[in-house]
């Protein structure tokens, strides 16, 4: 074909770390175009895929490459002309590997965005320059806040359609700041872009000399992501017990799991929860090598000084650090993801890290109006509702508040019959003294 130059890149192995981000916008705000632009301009698109794209764009009246086709997936969607779920896209630059969770903007949106956001370090919230902050922007920002996404970028898109007017941009930024304050969103960055033309996405805009900040990609490449788990209190749950029972490893009993946060040193005094037993870390293995110290999120195998028989789900914490909550009565924020409503008295399976317990709904405290953020009373939750509820679990859970520690403060609810995942739960602070009670069996 004429005119289409294939981008060419040869960058590699200096890639330092990973940034996982989510894009949020209403239908037609330009989300697909933006992702396509990021992939295209950072030269992440393969030649054969470009050819397909070119073939598919040929029927369009203006013949311009339709970059949104890059993120379109399943056939059902192609037929409906919309995306129906979270799709993951990958690209990398010399500095970072990027994982994009692309959740589409329609009815199922809250559920999909919550799913994508659960693993995101950053959210790009798209605002159409012609529309400004709209109802949907409230919803997206609420979810970002609820899910504890550390960084927010508000990309004011379609600047080409408002003559690249800086007043429009600053007006939207000021509007959004009010919203951010209400939701307690701290790190908010504003960037004026045109995904279609390419301004300030990967290349600086020639049309907006008044904007001297970074392009979106520059920002994504350099923003510090909250990877300081090592500074948190140590949290570990047994995932799997390694017992080779061979001659060479006759007495070997290793507790395999991921260090969710913090660090463990050989010789650390630790407490097993919920049992409350204290012991010492005899040794720590990382990839079959003994180490002095392990840090989150390393996968480790731990060995204890005392002969305690732990099984999957048991937690280990350091005795000299802040203790997690240990209780059967929990309060949490949920996003309800099932078509079957949640009601007080309903029973579910609750999975928290590697623990699964039964739980019963005690109370729905309130539902949040996703546009006004008002608290409403209700006797049941419907699909896509965001609410605060109280549960009682059959066994005590060992956890931290989600706001303090995403890894140990998150859980899911599972329908007992279909086994479908029906809710995302973000735990709130609870009583702490329960770990002293050692009535609980391991």
């Amino acid at each position, binding site marked *: 074909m004429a005119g289409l130059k294939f981008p060419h890149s040869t960058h590699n192995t200096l890639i330092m770390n*990973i940034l996982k981000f989510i894009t949020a916008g209403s239908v037609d705000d330009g989300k697909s175009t933006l992702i396509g632009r990021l992939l295209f301009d950072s030269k992440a698109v393969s030649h054969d895929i470009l050819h397909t794209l070119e073939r598919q764009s040929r029927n369009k009246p203006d013949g311009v490459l339709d970059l949104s086709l890059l993120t379109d997936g399943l056939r059902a969607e192609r037929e409906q002309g919309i995306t129906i779920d979270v799709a993951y*896209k990958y690209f*990398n630059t010399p500095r970072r590997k990027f994982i994009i969770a692309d959740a589409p903007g329609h009815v199922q949106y809250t559920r999909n965005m919550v799913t994508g956001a659960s693993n995101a370090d950053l959210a790009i919230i798209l605002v159409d320059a012609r529309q400004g902050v709209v109802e949907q922007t409230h919803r997206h920002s609420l979810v970002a806040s609820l899910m504890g996404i550390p960084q927010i970028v508000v990309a004011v898109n379609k600047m080409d359609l408002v003559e690249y007017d800086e007043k429009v941009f600053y007006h939207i930024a000021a509007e959004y700041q009010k919203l951010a304050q209400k939701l307690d969103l701290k790190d908010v960055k504003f960037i004026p872009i045109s995904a279609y033309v390419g301004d300030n996405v990967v290349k600086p805009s020639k049309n907006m000399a008044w904007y001297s900040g970074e392009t979106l990609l520059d920002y994504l490449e350099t923003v510090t992501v909250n990877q300081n788990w090592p500074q948190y209190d140590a949290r570990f749950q047994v995932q*799997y017990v390694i017992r080779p029972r*061979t001659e060479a490893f006759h007495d070997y009993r290793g507790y395999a799991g991921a260090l969710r946060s913090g660090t463990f040193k050989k010789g650390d005094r630790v407490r097993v929860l919920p049992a409350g037993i204290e012991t010492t870390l005899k040794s720590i293995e990382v990839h079959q090598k003994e180490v002095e110290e392990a840090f989150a999120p390393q996968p480790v195998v731990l060995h204890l000084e005392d002969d305690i028989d732990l099984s999957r789900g048991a937690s280990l914490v350091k005795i000299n650090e802040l203790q997690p909550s240990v209780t059967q009565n929990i309060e949490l924020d949920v996003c309800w993801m099932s078509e079957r409503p949640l009601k007080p008295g309903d029973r579910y399976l609750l999975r928290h*890290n590697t623990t699964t317990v039964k739980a019963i709904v005690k109370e729905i405290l309130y539902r949040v109006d996703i546009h006004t953020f008002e608290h409403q009373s209700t006797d049941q939750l419907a699909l896509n509702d965001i609410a605060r509820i109280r549960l009682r679990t059959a066994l005590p859970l060992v956890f931290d508040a989600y706001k303090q520690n995403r890894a140990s403060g998150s859980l*899911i609810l599972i329908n007992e019959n279909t086994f479908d995942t029906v809710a995302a739960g973000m735990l709130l602070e609870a009583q702490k003294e329960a770990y002293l009670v050692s009535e609980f069996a391991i």
Partner: protein
Amino acid sequence: MSRSFDYLDHLEAQSIHILREVAGQFERPALLFSGGKDSITLVKLAEKAFRPGKFPFPLVHIDTGHNFPEVIAFRDKLAAQLGEKLIVRKVEDTILRQGLKDGTGKYPSRNALQTNTLLEVIEEFEFDACIGGARRDEEKARAKERIFSIRDEFGSWDPKRQRPELWDTYNGAIRKGENVRVFPISNWTELDVWNYIQREKIELPDIYFSHSRNCVVTPGGQLLAITPHIRLDSEDITSVREVRFRTVGDATCTAAVESLASTVEDIIQDILTTKISERGATRLDDRLSEAAMEDRKKNGYF
């Protein structure tokens, strides 16, 4: 104390976490081993997740009968070195047993038939989870694949019935007859896999590296190894080329690429400069229709 943790460490940690979740959540899991670089990478990750213990699952190979002999030899050597159980089931036997029709045409593919053998072996051993090396970057329809992907009794994948997957909390609870396909390297790209192979010095079958091979040039310009499984006729153009394979599936539908890359470093450079997606370059069957992969998945294909 240095706490360096780079992007490959992150990918590795996530994959190990997933493998250990499989071990913790399922009673009879299996690792589907194709002999390709992705499943060899999975084996490496399983060693990191479970040694000095044994793998909590056997390796299962679905032998299409169209595999490259180098790959089969490599498979047997690796299983022996690991001291792990290897289960091999042949598509040929399924064809006989179920009275199926073998692939026809010039390049008779057994890709579709592979699904039948897979479902047979799942039933035979009552596997409740099958670990595979598929990656989301391979193909558009894979981009929405879950890490724990639920299949019904017929092995079918229903895009509407997939569970939301939150944080790294995986829900592997299933009803009788259902099973789960687990993809621990979902978030890896082809380049990531090669970077990891380089870092960990993972050994691969020779056919991944440049070698001379007698090939037939397809009308689409792709190079196909001449093996007893394809039918040549007088119009076919054959020639000896310096080639390597980017994936090592069924020999009748996995094309070779011309390349002089003879080391892992060369291959990484090759990937960075050629910029043709893995599937685009090497799979004949995906090109039949854009939705081909999606249809195969719905029918229980891995």
